[in-house]
């Protein structure tokens, strides 16, 4: 079976926010005098302590009586995960602006902070040279395993964030790691990569010049200034050079001709501090444009030279800032004439840390794990939990991808081989980022259901003292999230789409949804299959209970009688009332006792069970269990049962073999949309 784990490495080296605080805590020196704490940390940091020290703000030793709340925050809580730890480190590192140093510092912090001695030793062995390896490893990992990791940004597009489907083959690509400077790496395979260039104009230049020319001394402050600024007051544009005539030439007057070209003094401005006549917002904006343009242009030049079409951006410079992303995108489109695509990563700042973590985990355990994003715990495109400490709290708008929770899966997940066009396969039938009507409908459904769900939850835990309180927290948090989605629909990324499906499949809240009694209607079904018998049919099963007993098994029998082998594929993990693989094993044992045909088929291996790899009411065929995928190569019939697997996902999917999608449309709104009535039975057969 496949169980899902959170990444909580040995010793739970999970702490968050301020390394000064947490380092102290994790070295068990939190109660010691400040000097001892500082010295211990410095000792542990080795020769990097000076730079590191500069960005530290050591908190006073915790005094529980007075600062109870804060002290509680410092404690390592149950369920705190590695991403929170990484987030904290990256916040600090990004904050300190150590650029290329950052990966190293983070590794040092892990080494210092980790409690597990075995892992600590291993991590210490990671040499500086492995930074790049970690970076690439992390990037490959995200691109392969995290759905909707990469996106193109199209300013004023609908949607602005265009998520990329994860392709079976991500190589080759160009990775620009934008730290204080920029490293440009060509990645050709999991193990083959090369640093082909770089530029010294990066985040450090932005912050360095910004610190000199404005009052902002923090990266985010400078970004916030830039967003408010107008670079045209500082930059020389075409219209400044060509005068009013530019329109006659078909040239937009706002074309950038010379960055900071207007700040050149001329004889008219005799004396006085030049800097004072330019707004610092405008200067910051011009800086951001200058550097983003430059990075985009240089990315194109390298991509062209090496014949690459995709450039991913890692590092901490971009931070999800639309101005930065649109500037880079514009520059790349302009200089490559659309040939080279600039793609941004939701977890741009995590690449090295994730790579380092995976490297450590691999060395610790030779089993090849597969990881999946935990949507409930991850922030998606929002900053779900701004760190509460002092200046970190100001991070706010930028650096938005700061929460990643990963589940470890026991089996690798791969594309289903029968997909006709795996590179363009989208599991979702409706893209809620684009489909406004559908989005509003489902968000309304959620909103209306919140109280009911919370009530059910409280009722289900009669012995819990704080269930009321937790339910209340849930309501607040959930409402806030829904509001965000209404305001910024592009954030309806994978995690939320998924929950949409969860609820609609089960009619949790569909305005006109029925109870699940409708399922029983299928009991009267007596499937007949005609024509040439199939060799191997794979049935993706849906609900437990009547659905599987009265719906699926008669179909299985029919197929077996025709001489078709059958694989029943159920979810690996639990999701609502879907039958799981393990439950199906129990069920089938009971069925064999009652039905001799089934019994014989099981004995002769004509009827087998394979887990799907999924733990969702929906089915993403780009992420199915490897063994199932292997068996699937021989299949000539795929059957998808239920709304989650056949309607909300895969309705439009096309296969290289025959397929049958069947469901009862339990939701009136959706049924109408598909041109039917509520409780219509849908069969979609394709060959």
């Amino acid at each position, binding site marked *: 079976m496949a169980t899902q784990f959170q990444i909580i490495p040995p010793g739970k080296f999970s702490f968050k926010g301020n390394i000064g605080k947490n380092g102290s805590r994790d070295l068990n020196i939190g109660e010691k005098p400040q000097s001892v704490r500082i010295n211990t940390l410095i000792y542990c940091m080795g020769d990097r302590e000076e730079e590191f020290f500069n960005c530290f703000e050591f908190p006073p030793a915790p005094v529980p009586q007075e600062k109870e709340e804060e002290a509680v925050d410092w404690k390592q809580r149950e369920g705190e995960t590695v991403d929170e730890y990484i987030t904290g480190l990256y916040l600090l590192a990004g904050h300190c602006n150590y650029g290329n140093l950052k990966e190293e510092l983070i590794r040092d912090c892990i080494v210092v902070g980790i409690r597990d001695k075995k892992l600590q030793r291993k991590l210490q062995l990671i040499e500086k040279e492995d930074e790049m390896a970690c970076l690439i490893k992390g990037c490959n990992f995200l691109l392969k395993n995290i759905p909707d990791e990469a996106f193109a940004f199209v300013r004023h597009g609908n949607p602005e964030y265009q998520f990329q489907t994860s392709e079976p083959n991500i190589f080759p690509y160009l990775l620009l790691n934008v730290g204080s400077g920029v490293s440009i790496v060509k990645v050709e395979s999991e193990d083959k990569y090369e640093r082909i260039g770089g530029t010294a104009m990066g985040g450090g230049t932005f912050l360095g010049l910004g610190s000199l020319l404005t009052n902002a001394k923090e990266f985010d402050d400078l970004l916030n200034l830039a967003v408010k600024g107008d670079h045209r007051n500082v930059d020389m544009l075409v219209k400044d050079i060509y005068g009013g005539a530019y329109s006659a030439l078909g040239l937009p007057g706002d074309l950038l001709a010379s*960055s900071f070209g207007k700040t050149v003094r*001329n004889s008219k401005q005799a004396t006085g501090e030049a800097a004072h006549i330019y707004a610092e917002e405008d200067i910051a904006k011009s800086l951001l444009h200058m550097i983003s343009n430059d990075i985009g242009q240089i990315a194109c030049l390298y991509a062209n030279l090496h014949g690459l079409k995709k450039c991913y951006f890692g590092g901490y410079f971009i931070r999800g800032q639309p101005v930065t992303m649109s500037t880079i995108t514009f520059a790349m489109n302009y200089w490559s004439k659309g040939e080279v695509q600039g793609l941004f990563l939701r977890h741009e700042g995590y690449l090295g840390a994730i790579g380092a973590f995976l490297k450590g985990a691999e060395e610790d355990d030779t089993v090849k794990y597969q990881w999946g994003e935990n949507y409930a715990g991850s922030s998606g495109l929002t900053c779900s939990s701004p760190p509460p400490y002092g200046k970190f709290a100001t991070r706010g708008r930028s650096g938005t991808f700061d929460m990643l929770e990963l589940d470890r899966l026991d089996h690798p997940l791969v594309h289903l081989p029968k997909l006709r066009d795996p590179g363009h396969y989208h599991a979702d039938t409706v893209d809620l980022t684009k489909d406004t009507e559908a989005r509003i409908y489902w968000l309304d459904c959620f909103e209306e259901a919140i109280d009911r769900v919370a009530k059910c939850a409280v009722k289900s835990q009669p012995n819990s003292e704080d269930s009321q309180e937790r339910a209340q927290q849930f309501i607040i948090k959930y409402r806030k999230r829904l509001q965000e989605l209404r305001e910024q629909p592009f954030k309806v990324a994978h995690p939320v789409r998924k929950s949409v499906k969860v609820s609609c499949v089960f009619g949790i809240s569909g305005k006109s949804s029925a109870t699940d009694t409708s399922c029983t209607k299928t009991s009267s079904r007596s499937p007949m299959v005609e024509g040439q018998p199939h060799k191997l049919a794979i049935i993706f099963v849906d609900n437990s209970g009547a659905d599987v007993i009265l719906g699926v098994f008669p179909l299985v029998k029919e197929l077996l009688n025709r001489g078709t082998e059958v694989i029943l594929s159920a979810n690996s993990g639990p999701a609502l009332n879907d039958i799981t693989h393990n439950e199906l094993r129990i069920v089938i044992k009971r069925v064999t006792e009652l039905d001799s045909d089934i019994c014989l088929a099981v004995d002769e291996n004509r009827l087998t069970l394979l887990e799907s790899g999924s733990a969702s009411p929906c089915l993403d065929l780009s992420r199915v269990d490897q063994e199932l995928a292997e068996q699937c190569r021989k299949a000539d019939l795929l059957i998808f049962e239920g709304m989650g697997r056949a309607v909300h996902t895969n309705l439009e999917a096309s296969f290289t073999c025959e397929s049958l999608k069947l469901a009862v449309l339990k939701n009136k709104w959706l049924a109408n949309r598909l041109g039917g009535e509520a409780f219509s039975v849908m069969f979609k057969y394709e060959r």
Partner: protein
Amino acid sequence: MDSKPKFINGNTPTTGSENGSDIDSDIAAPPMPWFGLDIGGTLTKLVYFEPTDINTAEEEGYKEVETLRTIRHYLTSNTAYGKTGIRDVHLTIKQFEIHQRVGNLHFIRFPTNDMHIFLQMVEAKKLSSLADTICSTGGGAFKFEQEFKDVVNMRLEKYDELNCLISGIHYIDSKIPNECYYWSNLDPFNSEACEKVPFDFRDPYPYLVVNIGSGVSILTVHSRHKFQRVSGTSLGGGTFLGLCCLLTGCQTFEEAIEMAASGDSTKVDKLVRDIYGGDYARFGLPGSTVASSFGHMNISEKRDAATKNDLARSTLVTITNNIGSIARMCALNHGIERIVFVGNFLRVNPIAMKLLSYAMEYWSKGALKALFLEHEGYFGAVGALMKLISTKSDQKDKSEPSQFEV
């Protein structure tokens, strides 16, 4: 506002099919005075031909002979005009033969912002009584067209600036020995050891032209008539001077260069060795490579420790390296080995020239060669002058330029 970055358009492939530096001697020479004007974003460049083969009798035939003499005298007897106009005396080409005339070619520049002063001079010297047009190029030819008409009643005859640039380069190079040179004995730690060595420019094709004005234009040149703008950047001389003005409060380009000459950019920039303690051998990065321009300046102590000269130096190094990097990638993408750097950013700027030379050589392992031209910023103006004397007035190129360089 629309915050999208914009660039100078100019990627439209253009082959300069036009008659570049060839002067058709059948065409009657236009009346004196002969000017070529290039109005850039920051600087305006004026090329003036002073005939020395004057046949007094012939000249007396002109009705405005006094005016002509006044102008000639004014331009050649001064080296500065107004507060900001400068004649680059060291660039004067003596005994220059053009269109069967012999004389001196003078090179004059003034800030584009002082155009009104120039116009006053034109008016005072009654230039418009001698000619009704001035052959001009650069964006300012458009911007100031109306002003010329209104103030001095003269027409700016506008020519494509890349065309002017290329024909100017070829014309000067074909006429002047030792115009083109490179820097040898490059040593980043001992710039005094570098020396200028003439380069034979008779068969330079293909080559790249990197014209560094306020912004930068990059062109591939495959023959005298076949060239194309392939790239450019908004980080150019204007960026250097603009940032220097903001950072140091300096007033002029010369001042900025002077400050930079005595500054130390390693106090401002973060080098590879600041991060790795030495070279980053695995990726072939020497410790002295700049890892992050201005990368130290986020730390207040280092900000306090950096002098204005250090900041000026770092600005110069940053802009120069960036231009070098883009130029190098363009050369690689187009399979070109010779890169000619021109533009007024290079004026009195051996630091930038040596840095570019070193960067081209180092990163290409000697495959790329950085070349420079003595009349670095004046080729556009020379090209405009060529148009004046090579084209009959009724045949002037009226086509809208397809490419622009700033």
